[in-house]
């Protein structure tokens, strides 16, 4: 659905995006993460036909971004990270304006405007002035604008920024709903834990380069060379540490406030055996659990260069 081919964007000597290649399949929710200045917004603006590439190209819904601008614009719904609204317009007038801008006939517009307002949960604000809406409501209104012409591809740059926790949960549900409707979504966010929740694939960028990409699970597997296990005991921490250190599957061990954290190189069967050994030794065990890798960890390790 989206295929970025060797995209390069430079401003003088500064290389904003360096030979980026990425493929987003139909009905994917592809999350793009990276620190400020990583090149996420540059990539999104390029995909939205708002930026001339230094070199490279991209296909969106089968159309070339640098050649079939109008077809690409018809295929995408773009939500910028910073956007404004036309003061003095009401919510329905704002959507009506963009519906006309996308060439939707009047006969269909009433239904479409109501449908998208229901989808983003703003139907109760239909007659309100857009400049009177809260930040979160404006985000939802802009999302409604991106949906007004029913595009197959959504390009959402930081759609959850500035939203309160409840609005973020709602945004997540909305994106799931849109994926069910068959939309292909490419989205950026700084809230990594949430991206892991609603994206099936992730790309991590830094300084214009793509550090990792693919399904979330495969990226997490890649950053973990070994499993991590946490053991919490009531007293007897040193005695427990002695038992753990003696096991060949434990490659390293740290201890803090009764919490022992070990890197595990053995099999799952060996881990079960280790757990039994600790219990049989009469250690008052509060918990013994494997810590799952998460996106924050992956992001930090990749951007620090700890993972090749």
């Amino acid at each position, binding site marked *: 659905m989206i295929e970025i081919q060797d995209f390069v964007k430079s401003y003088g000597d500064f290389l904003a995006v360096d030979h980026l290649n990425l493929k987003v399949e139909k009905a994917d929710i592809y999350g793009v993460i990276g620190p400020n200045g990583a090149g996420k917004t540059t990539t999104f603006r390029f995909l939205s036909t708002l930026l*001339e590439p230094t070199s490279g190209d991209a296909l969106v819904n089968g159309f070339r971004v640098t050649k079939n601008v109008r077809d690409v614009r018809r295929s995408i719904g773009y939500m*910028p990270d*910073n956007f*404004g609204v*036309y003061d003095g317009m009401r919510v329905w007038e704002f959507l009506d304006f963009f519906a006309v801008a996308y060439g939707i*006939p*009047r006969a269909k517009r009433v239904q479409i405007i109501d449908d998208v307002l229901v989808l983003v949960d703003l139907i109760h604000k239909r007659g309100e002035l857009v400049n009177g809406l809260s930040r979160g409501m404006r985000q939802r209104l802009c999302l409604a604008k991106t949906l007004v*012409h029913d595009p197959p591809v959504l390009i959402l740059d930081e759609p959850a920024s500035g939203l309160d926790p409840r609005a973020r949960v709602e945004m997540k549900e909305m994106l799931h709903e849109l994926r069910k409707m068959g939309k292909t979504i490419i989205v950026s966010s700084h809230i990594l834990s949430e991206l892991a929740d609603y994206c099936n694939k992730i790309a991590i960028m830094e300084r214009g380069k793509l550090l990792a990409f693919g399904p979330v699970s495969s990226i997490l597997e890649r950053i973990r060379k070994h499993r991590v296990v946490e053991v919490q005991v009531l007293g007897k921490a040193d005695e427990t540490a002695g038992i753990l250190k003696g096991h060949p599957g434990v490659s390293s061990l740290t201890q803090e406030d009764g919490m022992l954290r070990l890197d595990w190189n053995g099999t799952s069967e060996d881990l079960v055996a280790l757990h039994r050994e600790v219990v049989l030794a009469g250690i008052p065990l509060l918990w013994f659990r494997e810590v799952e890798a998460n996106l924050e960890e992956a992001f930090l390790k990749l951007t620090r260069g700890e993972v090749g």
Partner: protein
Amino acid sequence: MLHDNAVLRRELLTMLRGHRAFIMQAIFLIVLSFLVLVAWPMDEDYINLRAERSRTLFKLFAIGELTLVSILAPVFSAGSVTMEKELHTVDLLFTTQMHVFSIFIGKLLSSVVYILFLVMSTLPMLVICFILGGLAASDVLSVYGGLMCVAVLFGLVGLMCSTFFSRTHASLAITYLIVLPMTLVLVLIVTALTSFVPFFWIVLVATVIGAMVMVPLTVRRLSQPFSDVERSAEEERIEDQAGLVLMRDRFPDSLLAPSRRDDLIPDGTNPVLDKEMRFEIFGRGTLLVRLIIQISIGISIFFIPLVFTGHEPIYTCYLLSFVVFITPAFACPSFTQERERGTFDLLLTSLVTPEQVITGKLVAACRCTGVLTAFLSLPMVLGLFKDMTVVDLLRHAAVVGMTIFATAVMSLFFSLFFRTTLVALVVTYLSVLFLYITPALSLKILEVFAGGSPGTGSWLMLTSPFFAAFSVGEWEYQNTFFKTGGIPKEMVWAGFNGFYLLLSLGLLAAMRAGYERFTTGLKAVRMGA
């Protein structure tokens, strides 16, 4: 107060770090050098008359500096507080421990110091004028002292307006509206005086009185919180009672701003035009428009007797001045405001064509200025009861109409080309001044100083709508300042309209050709694919 004033330091650093300061100084010095060069006595008799010529040259030089100061001073002062509001830095500034008066002094000095620097940089040119003799030191000191007072006075006006308005273009437009009549009066004073000493005292007194009125007002406004740039319900009620709010559902206000829709936009409508007319143009300040209308109508009352006495061209010149002033205020924010507000990307990624965007914004700007000018033009109809013919009335209307169209096109062009409204406004005003007044004025200076007709150079006068206005009707313009050398008066009118029609069409074509380059960086040819 001045020592370690953070506002002053920051403003000066920002101002002088960019290339704008250098460009401004270059333009300032080039224009003045051009005036001196044109007016430099070249004829054989100048040795006998050189003291007199020197004084005339110096007077011209002073008028030129005064005009440039009046154009540039509002640029720096009128946006000093509104820019803070627009960039949302006003809360940061006013929650520091700086005293409000320190902020006021910092803002005022930072807007004035650069102008003073510009004025002082013209001293070498003045030394050249001294070669001719006839000037006393008191004259020079008076003119330079007077110009400094003018810079402070206009800086105060701009700063005061900046605290009263939430948008820079509104503040700038009102500042110009106040400053331009004052400049006109000062130019008349300089022209009439034989010595420059009284000029200084007049300006000093005006500045002191102005400061006594404006300083408390400005400081009071600065002490109020600005974070809420939207007008409160109470402010709206007061404006409504004062007749400062447009009644969109009533005639003639409905001509300016159509009332809000109850239903969806009809098919086939240009959405950009609809948006501009209903939400944008008067979203830029109903108060501003009302003030402009009321002040302009007030001034026009003094001009109406001219229509009954066969001096219609003078009334047309008043209308032209109004057009030149008001059109950029409406048209310049067209594209820049979309950028500043962050709505341009939303518009650009829709399927609206560049033609729809450009025509929508152009028609909206022309319609608003046209309707406002039409209100002011009504007294011209009274001329039909005197000696004016319907054809002459239409010819006057054509000159005004073409000026509206050409000014709107130039404003849109610069709005598309530049990123901020302030820069687009300043460049448009300077361009309009350069095209409408400078060539004709230079030729006149050349004619007066060099003697005789400027010959083929006379054709440059076709760029001025003011000369075109004087070419209409039975006005005996060949005996006035507005005589146009050997060019037939019919040719002046036709040449003006033809020139600006071609220029406007050329600019529109350039805007269309460069639309993608200016807005997205994508090459134009790819849009049609």
